[in-house]
């Protein structure tokens, strides 16, 4: 572990992984409750178009992907609002459009851009640049601050949009905000986890935690802890096995899910006896 820290690129990658491990489940817990578990996937695909555009025009990938994902967030909320029943279809459109756009633009770009697309799809240990770290820290602080202030309203909307609206909560604003926050998380996780797998780190720790918890708050806290553990462990694992970090991080998260699935059985039966 100490040996890993001797490499600058690994220090940066570890910071980036820890950040995404912390904030991804924090947003994921709201998405799962709203039954929008696949929203992050859609955002990841749209961000890929942003990466393709960055290759094509030679702009910086993080801001370009961010712009694309945020546009995607507004787009998906607009589609969801306009056509009440087609939430999953709206997501499907983003999936296909995003991937197609990303690969197309990257292929049109000069040089070997399309081969470096892989690093953005499945994560990479070496792509976190010096400037990225500060951008990621700033983005994570912004996400955490927004959740601290508006978390209760986001919770109310994901519990039941109608009763939230009758409490005076601006449901459309909160829904759009949730999509934008998911977009930010996707871009934060893009470097180390990769765009195809980043939404797993939003969803899997939450799915794992809720097997043993009894409240929303406990689920969120445990999911954040699991997200952090899986991200850091996955990153270290990928260094030693020499594979992209995205898959190892997700596999560690799935391992957490499996362990808690086993642990949940005695916990539930003990609770049943207690009542």
């Amino acid at each position, binding site marked *: 572990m100490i040996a890993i820290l001797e490499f600058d690129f690994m220090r940066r990658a570890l910071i980036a992984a820890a950040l995404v491990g912390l904030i991804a489940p924090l947003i994921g817990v709201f998405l799962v409750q709203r039954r929008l578990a696949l929203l992050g996937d859609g955002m990841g695909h749209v961000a890929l178009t942003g990466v393709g555009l960055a290759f094509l025009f030679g702009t910086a990938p993080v801001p370009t992907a961010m712009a694309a994902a945020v546009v995607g967030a507004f787009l998906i909320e607009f589609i969801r609002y306009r056509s009440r029943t087609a939430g999953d279809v709206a997501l499907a459109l983003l999936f296909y459009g995003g991937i197609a756009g990303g690969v197309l633009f990257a292929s049109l770009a000069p040089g070997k851009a399309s081969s470096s697309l892989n690093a953005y799809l499945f994560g990479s240990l070496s792509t976190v640049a010096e400037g990225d770290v500060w951008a990621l820290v700033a983005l994570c602080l912004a996400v955490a601050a927004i959740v601290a202030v508006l978390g209760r309203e986001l919770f109310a909307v994901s519990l039941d949009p*109608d*009763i*939230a609206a009758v409490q*005076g909560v601006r449901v459309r604003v909160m829904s759009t905000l949730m999509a934008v926050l998911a977009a930010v998380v996707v871009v934060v996780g893009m470097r180390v986890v990769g765009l195809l797998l980043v939404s797993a780190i939003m969803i899997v720790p939450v799915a794992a935690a809720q097997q043993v918890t009894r409240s929303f708050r406990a689920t969120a806290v445990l999911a954040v802890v699991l997200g952090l553990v899986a991200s850091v462990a996955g990153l270290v694992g990928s260094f030693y096995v020499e594979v992209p970090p995205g898959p190892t991080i997700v596999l560690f998260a799935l391992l957490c899910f499996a362990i808690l699935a086993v642990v949940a059985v005695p916990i539930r039966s003990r609770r049943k006896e207690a009542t």
Partner: protein
Amino acid sequence: MTHPHPHGAATSAADEVVGVSRLCVEFDSEHVLEDVDLSIGRGEFVALLGPNGSGKTTLVRTMLGLQTSSHGSVRLFGEPLSRFRSWQRIALVPQRLPGSTSIPVSVWETVLSGLISPRRRWRPFSRVERAAATTALTDVGLWGKRHERLDTLSGGQQRRVLIARALASGADLLVMDEPTAGIDAANLVQLTALLARLHEQGTTVIVVTHELTGISHLITRAVVLGPDRRESVVFDGPPPVPGQLLHDHVHHHDTDGDGDAPSVVGLEP
């Protein structure tokens, strides 16, 4: 909840809780509600009845601003809907919470969620607010279950938690969607007693319902929506015989034959 209890009083402007004038609602240019006029006063216990598709849910949703109207106006506590901001005075009690099944939500969190408001975004829940939530949960007899997951409770208990949630908010208008549907006898008794006490304390209650079992003696006014869109409200008035009302006057039968709660299809001559 210190309002006087005006027994069957006609609604004056100052006492009006909900007012609806010439309200029309269309879905895809099909009329769901046509020319509805309704004024509900403080302390009334209103049952909103009608067959499936008569628009009773749409009427309530439009009253609360969840559905836009094509014509007409809605007033809440004397203010036009567009300018109404005192949302803490109103609580909607749904049949269930769609979001409680995907992630565990505790009974306590559910009750506290009744206090969430954009007005108090920057500060945590105060001691007074927590005390209100504690009292509300104790009143519905579920304080002992506060740490449980909401979705592990029975349907009747969940309904009582949702009522506690509304009580915690201190709302003086309670809008309830089918409060008695799918509730067993024991829970129904508790629910009815709770509603009776609220009504005595001056809370205005609007109940959207198919079945009057258990709550008919509480109702001070029945509003019946008919299937004919040209004339949405087919009956509006106090129950003819206090205490047993509509059973004699409203014809029940299971229109869709699926064994669900009977539908109220209209008044017999």
